[in-house]
């Protein structure tokens, strides 16, 4: 048994080495094609993902990590319960929009406005997710379809609101006015990184604790593993569905609020859609399966790849398109490795069962 496990580990290590060699080979070819020096590009990649003067690039990576990991945690809560909520983008936009509007409209002391706006954003995200849930349970629109289609109306509602009633006309851009400066999230001392990351850390801790220790998390996981089983043993499936979606949407809404108060300080049209935070979050979850603690790490990986590739373009003269191809190649190889390992381990488990 022990020998077998060692054998598996050795095989795992070899397959990772092979994957890394492939990544290096493909990147080398790509760089040779565009005539960029390999060493410089690699250095630029690492420098821009994790380095910089006073680690400023690392801060950029972490700031992006917060948003991607937040969306990943949101998606993970749904997926774990067997709910294919791919409407994270809509819930994110709902949160960001409501956060900005609430901060612009609400009177009162800044801390109150900030707190109330964040809560309002979470409510908005939860509400948007619930809408998809209600459509599934009571109208019969599959969640996969409903949640996806609900991304579009909220996106254009947001565009309309910042293009017309709430537009900062003087700026000449399609964006809202700045939210009061006193409500901006402060930076960590001595850095240019806002404390929004702490909210995401809190959300991740919540997700891990919720998944592993609560009755609700247990029931949700049973529903995710086998919906027929959950129904048969009498779990309150409808309630579970709606509550889980609300939770998932609330976290997406929180991410939207953090993007507003921590990064952009206003709602800019497309600011949450174009960087594909929600979709990257979904991929980040799919990469590691439903293992709660690994989800934030996966978010960090994707953020680092993105900022690193962008940096390569800036400092090593690698064209942006090639940088994007490289980014895709890295993700592809790592993802195939990780999901290959997951499939292999689930096959080992299934192999032990003999129900024919």
């Amino acid at each position, binding site marked *: 048994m022990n020998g077998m496990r060692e054998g598996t580990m050795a095989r795992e290590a070899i397959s990772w080495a092979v994957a890394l060699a492939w990544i290096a080979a493909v990147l080398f070819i790509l760089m040779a094609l565009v005539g960029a020096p390999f060493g410089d590009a690699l250095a630029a990649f690492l420098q821009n993902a994790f380095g910089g003067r006073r680690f400023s690039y690392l801060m950029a990576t972490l700031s992006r990590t917060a948003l991607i990991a937040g969306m990943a945690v949101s998606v993970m809560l749904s997926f774990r319960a067997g709910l294919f909520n791919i409407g994270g983008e809509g819930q994110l936009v709902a949160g960001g929009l409501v956060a900005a509007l609430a901060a612009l409209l609400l009177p009162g002391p800044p801390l109150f406005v900030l707190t109330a706006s964040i809560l309002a954003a979470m409510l908005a995200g939860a509400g948007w997710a619930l809408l998809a849930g209600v459509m599934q349970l009571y109208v019969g629109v599959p969640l996969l379809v409903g949640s996806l289609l609900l991304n579009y109306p909220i996106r254009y509602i947001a565009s309309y609101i910042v293009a017309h009633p709430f537009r900062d006309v003087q700026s000449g851009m399609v964006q809202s006015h700045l939210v009061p400066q006193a409500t901006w999230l402060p930076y960590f001392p001595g850095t240019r990184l806002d404390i929004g990351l702490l909210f995401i850390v809190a959300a991740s801790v919540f997700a891990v604790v919720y998944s592993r*220790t609560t009755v609700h998390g247990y029931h949700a996981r049973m529903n995710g593993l086998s919906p027929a089983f959950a129904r048969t043993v009498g*779990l*309150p499936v409808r309630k579970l569905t709606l509550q889980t979606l609300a939770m998932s949407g609330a976290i997406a809404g929180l991410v939207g609020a953090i993007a507003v108060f921590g990064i952009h300080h206003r709602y800019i049209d497309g600011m949450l859609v174009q960087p594909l935070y929600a979709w990257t979050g979904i991929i980040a979850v799919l990469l590691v399966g439903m293992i709660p603690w690994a989800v934030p790490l996966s978010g960090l990986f994707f953020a680092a790849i993105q900022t690193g590739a962008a940096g390569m373009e800036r400092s090593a003269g690698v064209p942006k398109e090639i940088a994007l191809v490289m980014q895709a190649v890295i993700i592809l190889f790592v993802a195939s490795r990780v999901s290959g390992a997951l499939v292999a381990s689930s096959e080992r488990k*299934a192999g032990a069962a003999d129900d*024919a």
Partner: protein
Amino acid sequence: MRVALSGITVRFGALTAVDNASLAIEPGEIHAVVGENGAGKTTLMNVLFGLVEPEAGTISLDGEEMHWASPQEAIRHGLGMVHQHFMLQESMTVLENVVLCAEPVGRFGFIDFAAARRRLAEVADEHGIAMELDRPVGRLSVGERQVVEVLKMLYREAEVLILDEPTSVLTPLEKDRLFATLRSFRSAGKAIVLITHKLDEVMELADRVSVMRAGRLVRSGPLSATSKEEIARGIIGGELPPARQRTARAPGKEVLAVRDLKVAGRGGTVGPLSLSVCAGEIVGIAGVSGNGQAELIQAITGLASLLSGEIVLCGRPIGHLDVEDRRLIGMSYIPEDRQRMGLALGATVSENANAGRDERAAYTRGPFLNRAAMAGFARQLIERYRIRVGGPAALASTMSGGNKQKLVVGRELARDTPLVIAENPTWGVDIGAIDFIHGELMRMRDEGHAVLLVSTELDEVLALSDRILVMYSGAFAGEVAGAEADRERIGGMMTSRAAAALPEVA
């Protein structure tokens, strides 16, 4: 065609499913392969048919060694297999299903259905099979679908026919006719392999019998050289458990009453159905699967909504309640499909044991789980129901079929509810587990619980029930008291159209 398997070994991970098995299949013979579930019968035949690649061993046809890259190759060489779960396209007609993947191509590359129809009529005629070729398979009964599978093999001119548990879905009459057809194949010089766990069928039909136990071929030889008792001992590797004694018991008050129940089924409305189950009795519902039993049970358990009618449990109407409320009022349910409904295979034994448990305070602290209490409860079930598993933290998928079923039975019976619904509770489990589960159901009855048993195994219904209801085509065809029930009478009530598709027994 003569088939020889020699030294076949198959491993799935750590499990050796078939261990160095050698077997010869002769033309003009019916060769029965018997053994408990999980003994490796189906796996061995899957090797012959090219569905499973063996780790060691060879297959030879008429002395020539063969290596299958796929089942299609095996089919081309004259092998045919009817699987336990039929491989048919429900929306296509009988003819389309039969020619699928072996379509006669006419001019311009179109399928020549007329030629196919002529050939099929010929082979069907030869063995006296009558079947309407233009009916969609979705509208056929289970027995008729099996005839379609047999036609498929004939159409492909299979010389070696493998049938995996072919009678598990048939009425006694349909079974007799299938056997007559198989005898006709035998006279035509075909080789037939019959995988089964029913000894009576072996004694009735086979020329040669091979017994498998735990992956090994323990004996193989002509039927005339052995006896039923000897085969049974070979299957279980010991003596049979003694027959069960039942104590006479007057039924108590009514626990479950169903009145004029109608449910939407796949082939049309099921019902109206009325039945009652009293405390201290087992009411068995016999019938070929697919005659509305599943719909009836779903309606009672709350998994499907009723069209009309009334369900009363412990004096309270429950027709409008959800599953959770019905279970709380006093219902336990052992579902037929333990893989999907009975268990969450990806979860641990402990998580499976505690799902849907009534006294929530016993395994929670506020909103949090009390993992120790959950594991403790799972350990109790493991001990009391003698479940062989690594422990509460083992994944449910690591258990064998019988132990999975014991976990489901244990979880449900431990709830001690007035009504117990058991749906094919021993489907696909070994003899030891069957005996144990039957014992538990009898114990529940003797302790004054009402038990509603649905089973497609007539023997099971006969062995356990105080009263027997026979279901056919969405309605009850009749009721028989358990004491005066006999197979022929009940078999007659189970009759379906499929019987007409196969020739009369001469």
